[in-house]
């Protein structure tokens, strides 16, 4: 039984999201096709799909809506995973070096850098150990965690009060933030009690996911000084451990309410938005590249566009495929809504503020337009929220 639960967990928390994350890779710059990007991207797409399946079920299915949602989301997830695998096979057939070589090589790095990484992984291990062995009291769990359990046990969504068990009309305020439903879905697929799942299992997913995002930010910011990356990560990990200066900080939420939607929004979605904005706008600088495998890179191939300089040298025109990154940013905005209704509002502010200053920096009004376009899911979400409230 334990083995089956373990395999189901690996399938639904690792394998399927990873396969789904392969979908947009073809439309991302080659150097950004990393394991971390695939894995985190997979979560953003999967959670967005979860929203698209769950909300209609909540609003339109009267009886046993969770059963319907569960069946549809299983089918959609499997189809998306199959699409990811199919696309990757196709990409490999066109270019055997479709993915870049992994950069993190623990054996070939200087001792100082190695020590930094070991320290960082010890800090992560400590946080995971504590997440399993320490319990944090938070009143909101009486709603979030109980909501998942109610869904799992009653097969309805947002029709039963999590606090008491009394029936209610549809809980509009929370029903668009479907994170507890996703937890209930994973609980159903794995056969694990949702409270155990939330408190003892999900931290092992959400903590590494968050650090993957910070790794992405750090490795981008320090791409010319990679030896400083472990120091960056150690400081980030220490800030999480010692960021409990009040009950309000995102760091406090990260380690004491890891499984709650608002904690995921604050620590996964918001940093991921910054990560993607960095990737999109702080990307190709038209640098001269190393000699290109001339002749191997067919026009229109995934991996970027290069202009020949002669003598076997190529210039990176900076016009690498970016559509995948924009699509991911769009799904990050949707994931914000999966986590919490306020997340939609907050992420829109973040994208707007960043886009404004990037527009000033680049003197390109189009940045603001593009940022506006990726916020369309936020606008739809807010409109639906207001419509259901009236």
């Amino acid at each position: 039984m334990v083995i089956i639960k373990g395999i189901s967990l690996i399938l639904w928390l690792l394998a399927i999201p990873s396969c789904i994350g392969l979908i947009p890779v073809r439309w991302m710059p080659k150097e950004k096709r990393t394991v971390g990007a695939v894995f985190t991207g997979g979560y953003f797409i999967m959670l967005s799909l979860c929203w698209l399946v769950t909300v209609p079920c909540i609003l339109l299915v009267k009886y046993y809506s969770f059963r319907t949602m569960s069946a549809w989301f299983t089918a959609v997830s499997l189809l998306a995973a199959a699409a990811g695998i199919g696309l990757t096979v196709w990409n490999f057939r066109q270019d055997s070096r479709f993915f870049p070589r992994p950069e993190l090589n623990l054996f070939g790095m200087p001792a100082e850098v190695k020590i930094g990484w070991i320290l960082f992984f010890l800090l992560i291990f400590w946080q995971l150990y504590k997440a399993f062995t320490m319990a944090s009291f938070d009143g909101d769990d009486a709603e979030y965690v109980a909501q998942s359990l109610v869904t799992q046990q009653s097969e309805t969504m947002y029709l039963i009060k999590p606090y008491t068990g009394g029936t209610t009309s549809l809980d509009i305020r929370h029903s668009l933030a479907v994170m507890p439903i996703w937890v209930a879905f994973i609980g159903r697929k794995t056969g694990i009690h949702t409270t155990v799942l939330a408190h003892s299992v999900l931290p092992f997913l959400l903590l590494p996911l968050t650090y993957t995002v910070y790794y992405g930010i750090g490795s981008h910011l320090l791409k010319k000084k990679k030896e400083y990356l472990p120091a960056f990560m150690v400081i980030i990990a220490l800030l999480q451990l010692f960021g409990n200066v009040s009950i309000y900080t995102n760091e406090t939420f990260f380690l004491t309410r890891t499984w709650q939607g608002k904690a995921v929004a604050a620590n996964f979605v918001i940093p991921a938005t910054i990560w993607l904005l960095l990737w999109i706008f702080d990307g190709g600088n038209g640098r001269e590249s190393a000699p290109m495998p001339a002749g191997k890179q067919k026009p229109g191939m995934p991996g970027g566009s290069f202009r020949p300089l002669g003598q076997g040298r190529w210039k990176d025109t900076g016009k690498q495929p970016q559509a995948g990154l924009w699509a991911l940013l769009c799904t990050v905005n949707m994931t914000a809504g999966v986590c919490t209704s306020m997340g939609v509002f907050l992420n829109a502010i973040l994208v707007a503020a960043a886009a404004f200053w990037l527009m000033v920096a680049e003197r390109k009004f189009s940045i603001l337009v593009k940022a506006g376009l990726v916020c369309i899911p936020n606008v739809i979400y807010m409109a639906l929220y207001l419509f259901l409230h009236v």
Partner: protein
Amino acid sequence: MYGIFMESVVIFKNYTGGRYLAAMFFLALLYLLFTEKDRRRRAMFVYMPISLLLAFFFPVTRKVFVRLMGEGDTYYRILWLVPMGIVIAYGGVKFACFVCEEIGAWAKRLILAVLCVAVMLCGKYVYASQYMSKAENPYHIPQKVIDICDVIAPEDGEERIWAVFPTDLVYFVRQYDTDIQMLYGREMVEPKWQYAEPVHTVMNHPSRIDIEELLALTRERSCTYLVLPNNKGVSADPEKFGLELLDTIEGYPIYYDPVAARMMEERYG
């Protein structure tokens, strides 16, 4: 407007907890302001955080927020958008990098070590929080709640039951078993929400629970199980009113009320 601004100042102070991590952030921000040459990174890690902070303190933002969200309690979440951690880490590493080039590798190591120690000293260790405790089980809820729930929970296929729990246990019951319904839940026991619920009012009496009054209310609402607090007296022996003591777990007496069950049977068949 000035009053709203001062409210935001208080929220910011509460958020930063009066610790020096905020000072570290401002130092890092200042350092990046003067040293970051890449205009896109300045946009992301200098101008954007500054503008978000200014927006946070700007009274109109708070007014709009309260209007949209219907509450001001969560206004602090605007501060989540300010990438304080990234700015501290990036500013710190950039400074260490500069020191390394100007002085040497030993100075870089020293700076990074000082930075790590400063984070530890200026912050507050999360696992020392009063809200953290050793997990008693994989559910991460008190074991006594699980033991009590196991006594009263209906078997598979049986009807859900109604129960009353002491204030300190209500948070956890339905995280373990949603077949147990409660006459009042977390929404009634949170002092900040100030809701009034008659059964909770009786159960929450500071020293003594009036059993007669309690049963009048619980029987009316078909509540068949009562878990009484372990630190309060009762006005009379509950068994005199027909209650059956099922068990006592960590001082919490668990009663079954056959009278309520009978009344329910008569009412609903």
